[in-house]
């Protein structure tokens, strides 16, 4: 076989494999869309391409009096905004101290962060439940938000500290000569220069409440306090085949905006992770 023919064959095989991947990726996603357009609620009678498609489930989510969908959306947004804001504030404080100062316990602190970020919140569920119960924050969005904010510190402090380390120390020194104090350097040098990584942290923490269902499941009891993920899960956790189409519709309405945000910011997210992870 000539060189050229071999090359053409290779390229064809590559395209074929990519097409195969596209089908594997696309099928479940399109299937979900198809399900959400089925008028019935049962998975059994649902068709991939429904004969008489309808938006009845979408309508139900927004207009039916027994639907809490909008409340869940509101809850998720509240938790997400609070989580993103306080996480950025707390982690940037911690990361600044760890990046720019040498103090007793610093090294052990770094080791502790690296270790703790691998411990999933699951490992401490019972304690979290009992403690929130003791301080009366069970079944409340405040309790949920507090756990999110505390739990993200090890991972994100590490990430942001890594980024701060890449900002040249000469800049701090120059600012100090110009009379800036500890806070001046932080607010006028570090924060503005670290915007990309702070954006990553804010985005991750904004997304977390939308996609996490485990913590809400342990903490929240009353359907009026549910976040989206938990509410949707409950559509199908009880009677599996009965509300699947409704679940599909509700899921699409959160998956689409989240997917768009991720696709638009993927470069930014991944470079942030590599910068923090390897240099950091």
């Amino acid at each position, binding site marked *: 076989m000539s060189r050229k023919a071999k090359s053409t064959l*290779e*390229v064809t095989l590559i*395209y074929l494999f*990519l097409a195969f991947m596209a089908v594997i*990726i696309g099928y*479940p*996603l399109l*299937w979900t869309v198809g399900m959400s357009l089925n008028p019935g609620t049962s*998975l059994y009678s649902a068709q991939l391409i429904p004969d008489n498609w309808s938006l009845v489930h979408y309508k139900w989510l927004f207009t039916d009096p027994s639907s809490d969908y909008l409340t869940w959306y509101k809850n998720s947004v509240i938790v997400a905004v609070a989580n993103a804001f306080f996480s950025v504030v707390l982690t940037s*404080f*911690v990361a*600044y*101290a*760890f990046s720019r*100062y040498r*103090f007793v316990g*610093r090294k052990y*602190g*770094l*080791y502790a962060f*690296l*270790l703790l970020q*691998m*411990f*999933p919140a*699951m*490992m*401490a*569920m*019972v*304690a979290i439940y*009992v403690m929130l119960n003791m301080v009366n924050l069970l079944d409340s969005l405040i309790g949920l938000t*507090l*756990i999110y*904010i*505390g*739990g993200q*510190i090890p991972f994100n*402090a590490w990430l942001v500290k*890594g980024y701060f*380390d890449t900002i040249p120390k000469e800049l701090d020194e120059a600012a100090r000569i110009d009379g800036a104090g*500890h806070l001046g350097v932080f607010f006028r040098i570090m924060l503005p220069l670290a915007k990309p990584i702070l954006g990553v942290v804010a985005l991750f923490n904004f997304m977390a409440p939308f*996609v996490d*269902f*485990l913590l809400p499941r342990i903490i929240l009891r009353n359907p009026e306090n549910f976040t989206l*993920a938990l509410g949707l*899960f409950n559509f*199908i956790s009880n009677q*599996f*085949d009965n509300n699947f189409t409704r*679940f599909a519709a509700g*899921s699409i309405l*959160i*998956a689409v905006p*989240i997917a768009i945000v991720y*696709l638009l910011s993927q470069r930014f997210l991944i470079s942030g*992770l*590599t910068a923090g*992870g*390897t240099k950091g």
Partner: protein
Amino acid sequence: MSTANPTAKQSHNPKTAVILSILLAGLGQLYNRRYVKGILFIILEISFILTLGRFLNLGLWGLTTLGTMEGTDHSVVLLIYGLVSLILIAFFVTLYIINVKDAKRDALRIQKGERAPTFREAAGNVWDKGFPYFFVTPGLIMLAFIVILPLMFTVALAFTDYSQYNQPPRALLSWVGFDNFARLFFETGGAGNNIWQDTFISVFTWTIVWTVVATTLQITLGLFLALIVNDPRIKFKRLIRTILILPWAVPAFVTILVFAAMFNDRFGAINTDILAVFNLSIPWLQDPFYTRIALIMIQTWLGFPFVFALFTGILQSISKEWYEAAEVDGANRMQKFKSITLPHVLYATAPLLIMQYAGNFNNFNIIYLFNEGGPAVRGQNAGGTDILISWVYDLTFTLNQYSMAAAITIILGLIVTGFAFFQFRKTRSFKEEGNL
């Protein structure tokens, strides 16, 4: 400052300052004639003892006894009080040590005859030296109560007898030493019908197989796709990359639940639409073997895009000159891959790849959402696809075997620490830190 310093006071003894400040925080500072600081320390200590003394006393008593009056004392609450007391005491001891060191330093200064700083100077000094601590404190407090305290609680729980039949406030808990671990490793069958050893071994083995196979597959597929899409002959790169990233962009809990429906034995699309063509019907959710296969396939689907995106970024940053030099030396494609591409890619991403393994090791979401760890298996109290962490969840929330769950959690924690150890070695910053 030479020895002939006229203000030097040989009579001022640092030892006295240290002893005084050990007796009562602040006394040493008073001896050093640093009155404001001394009084602050004294107020701090006395208020600490007055406000928290009773709580600490109760907490420490609770921690050792776990309560003595059945029905009145709540062992779990006492346990948490005890752990909070320990954290508070740790804070207090740290402050105390700072106080003693401070008294000693000031006394030495006076002995040498250095001028005592004015209050303003001292305050400025505290702000300067203490700044990192002020900045770390809010995060540290959150961390102490939301991450560290719960972990301590879990560790403590593993050494008690908290189970469905022994629940506070009805009953009192007691410390049982390593009994729970002994049951986990050695208890086979018997009266309680709890076959802990068998279950532990089978869950543990599957956890390891799951972690290694699923993670390696997702990394391999991600790497392979990154390589072929990076090929200069391939067009529409942006579109292809967007499609390949999609599984990462869609929230995982949605896709896992969708897959769970698609793999449904009776009316899932896999059996009714795809396999029906070949006249096949596989019991995806009934047979542990097939459930495991399905889980590994789904995790590969979910996990490869992140690795793909990561590798794509690195591949683009490898200088073309490396490859040109290799071509001049007559290297073939395989050699170029093995000696240039692979080392580059792995070196830059090692910490994140370790995190992928750690993530799958603790991947509760997929196991639980797909089939709740099922199908059930005879003769053990975990489902056929339960990994350690989902077994812990079941033991806690379904079977109420709190202490056994905590014991398994400790084992899990030790393994995770192993991952973290690898991570330390692979993360460059720690090597760089050494030079600072």
